[in-house]
């Protein structure tokens, strides 16, 4: 059973793609303005494909944000605010992306060795962790 579930993990994604492809009307046959968004995405067909991919990627980002402790409803709004390119980047790399935090709270959990290393590198001007260190680099 477990193996079966694992083997068919791609199925929901495929169903979503098929669904989206059949529901979204083909736009190219209608006379219309080339929209700013279409031009930003390249050719019309590319734009449509990118839009579908972005929809799936947004779901992925939503799931990841929830897994990282964000409230599901808030995560939905946050994902909606991302541009397609950003959603794509986050879907792939959210785990490795830096998240700017604080210098204050990290001190609580810091080890002595790391503290000393950073103190010395701060004094040498390679890092900038401790506000009380006066830099010697001129």
């Amino acid at each position, binding site marked *: 059973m477990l193996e079966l579930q694992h083997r068919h993990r791609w199925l929901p994604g495929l169903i979503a793609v098929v669904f989206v492809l059949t529901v979204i009307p083909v736009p190219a046959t209608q006379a219309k303005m*080339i929209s*700013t968004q279409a031009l930003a995405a390249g050719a019309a067909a590319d734009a449509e494909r990118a839009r579908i991919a972005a929809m799936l990627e947004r779901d992925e980002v939503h799931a990841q944000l929830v897994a990282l402790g964000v409230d599901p409803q808030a995560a939905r709004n946050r994902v909606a605010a991302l541009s397609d390119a950003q959603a794509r980047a986050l879907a792939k790399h959210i785990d490795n992306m830096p998240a700017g935090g604080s210098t204050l709270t990290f001190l609580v959990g810091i080890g002595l060795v790391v503290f000393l290393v950073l103190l010395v590198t701060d004094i040498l001007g390679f890092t900038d962790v401790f506000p009380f260190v006066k830099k010697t680099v001129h």
Partner: protein
Amino acid sequence: MSEFGGARAASPWPLLVLCAGLLALAGCASQNGPQLLASTLTVPPVELLDVPFYPQTAYHCGPAALATVLGWSGVSADPEQLGTELYIPAKHGVLQAELLARARRSRRLAYIIPPQLAELLRELESGHPVLVLQNLGLSWYPIWHYAVVVGVQPINGNLVLRSGDERRHVVTIETFERTWARGERWGIVVLPPGELPATATAVRLFQSLADLETQHDPTTTLPSWRAAVKRFPKDGRLALGLANALYESDRLASAAAVLKAALERQTDWSAVLYNNLAQIEADRGNWAVAETAATQAVRLGGPFLSTFRATLRTIQCRRAGKPTDCEPAL
């Protein structure tokens, strides 16, 4: 820690300091050195005094930095509220992409500057504070931090930042360069409508404005499109963005005028400009002009050719007075 604990009896201090020194040198050697030395600085001194300051609380350096640049751009923002909106618990921080998205939600143009100190200084010189991501620690022990660069003191070789709980964090350019390089020299400017980044390129400006427009009606972006076309008159995409924003605002005559002027300047993307001009002129009832423009678009071709053909066919059959044939027959 534990392996060092056992060595305590043998006084680990000299060893530790030696290790620290070696690690620091290794860290320094493995990255690009400072791109611009203080001695070669030729910029005038700048300090943007009207940039507000929000001391950060707990993990909230991202929201504090964002509130700082938003406040400067004319949007009053509460860092606590921003923190609630943007914080990611398991990461103990805020993502760059979400800072950009949040700035756009406040109707501000968020623009990533080129990753060079000289470009950052150009923005400062133009009066724009730059929100930066730094790794204040080491590559193997990152301490990610957002701050806002508000000043440069070329004589002392220092930068002035709104950072953490310091209103004026003065840091040498060398040290800043190292901490900034460890964050891949990521910096953004957050600008009010109509104001453009000093370091803007036409392509990236177009993308930033297109991103901004996905969330707001064109009245938000119109002033910036106008300024962009003025600065880059040869760029067809920016002209199209301006014309589309005018069209969406039901200002058809202005939209047509923008496209005609751009086509006279022989911008790139002229096929797309002709197509949209054809559609606008058709909406205005100027069928002859519309057909000429649509014919031009089809003649020039390109990736949107199928749309150009459809535009031309629709205009031709409407002109011929057979609207029933105008619906897509392919």
